[in-house]
């Protein structure tokens, strides 16, 4: 009788432990089990990636449509080569779309924002976006501002 009770408590303990694991996985890390969506890869070259990191969001109109897969240096052009995975159900991005590195909030994370172009041809796997806008670097902005202020005097 007593041993049965112990078994019951031990079983409950293990179940609670597994529940805690599932809770952490689903609620805290936001892991979705259907997360393994089909994706296709596109690339873009930036003059300055300014703090963009792997797994950063890629958005259209603020809606998340993919993530950054890798960031490497293009040694021939001296530009940052960003490879990103785009959900395959978003298959209607025109080839002349432009992409910019944006910041969420004043000090938030960097993410990529796509602005849709007007071309009839759509980007496919391995396609490249040529119209890119680099990250705003605060130092550059300030120096531009100072130069302008100096000119007007």
């Amino acid at each position: 009788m007593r041993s049965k009770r112990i078994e019951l408590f031990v079983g409950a303990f293990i179940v609670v432990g597994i529940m805690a694991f599932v809770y952490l996985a689903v609620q805290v890390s936001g892991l979705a089990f259907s997360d393994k969506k089909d994706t296709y890869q596109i690339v873009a070259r930036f003059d300055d990636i300014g703090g963009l990191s792997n797994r950063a969001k890629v958005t259209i109109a603020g809606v998340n449509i993919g993530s950054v897969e890798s960031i490497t240096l293009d040694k021939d052009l001296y530009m940052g080569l960003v490879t990103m995975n785009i959900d395959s159900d978003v298959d209607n991005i025109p080839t002349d779309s432009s992409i910019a590195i944006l910041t969420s909030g004043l000090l938030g994370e960097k993410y990529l924002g796509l602005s849709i172009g007007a071309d009839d041809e759509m980007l496919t796997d391995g396609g490249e976006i040529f119209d890119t806008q680099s990250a705003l670097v605060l130092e550059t902005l300030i120096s531009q501002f100072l130069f302008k202020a100096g000119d007007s005097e």
Partner: protein
Amino acid sequence: MKMVAELGAALLNWLESVGRAGIFLIQSVFRLPVRPKESLNLLVKQLYSVGVLSLVIVVVSGAFIGMVLALQGYSILAKFGSEEAVGQLLALALLRELGPVVTALLFAGRAGSSLTAEIGLMKATEQLSSFEMMGVDPLRRVIAPRFIAGVICLPLLSLIFSATGIIGGLIVSVNWLGVHDGAFWSLMQQSVYFDTDILNGFIKAVFFSVAVTWIAVYQGYECVPTSEGIGKATTRTVVLGSLAILALDFVLTAAMFGDF
């Protein structure tokens, strides 16, 4: 000259005890059980006394640590107007560091010391040698279920600790301090990754569990079989266990989160 010899002897003694502890672990755990049904029963009994009975202290301290983290984080983050980030702070701090480390420290104090004292008393009252007389291997019958139970329990307890900590922090920050709960969760989910944060925390807890339980059962088995010896062995379990946890934590953190 004499000092050098003493130093060498101390080093050799230390190496010898490390070797003994390793052989002891292999002899007790890496052996097939003779009667699987009975060993399972022994294991369940140990899971109860090591895991279930540690549940209360882990849940209570987890909830309070989560609440304190939320309060402290809120008071500083509110100065920058970004009090929603308290969820992110709470989850990362608990999952990466506080969950595994504090649970392991509590476990060393609560379960490790009782394992040492129990095994030490068994040795002092010659129960271990009477097992041997009866032809039962005490390593397999007494040590193995305790070690395995400790290794199973600590990671589970650490998960429970983190989960209750996050719930405690949620109550303080969302229900009492008025942080917007949508922002609380979404910022948390954006910054917590399953593999780098939750799994790495879990792996840490597994390492700690092996270290703490190993130290506890070994100290119990090797203690001087007197009441004073048992007391000393119990103290040594808690001290060595805590130091091992903190040192291991630094090494593991450097390996897991060291590349920025």
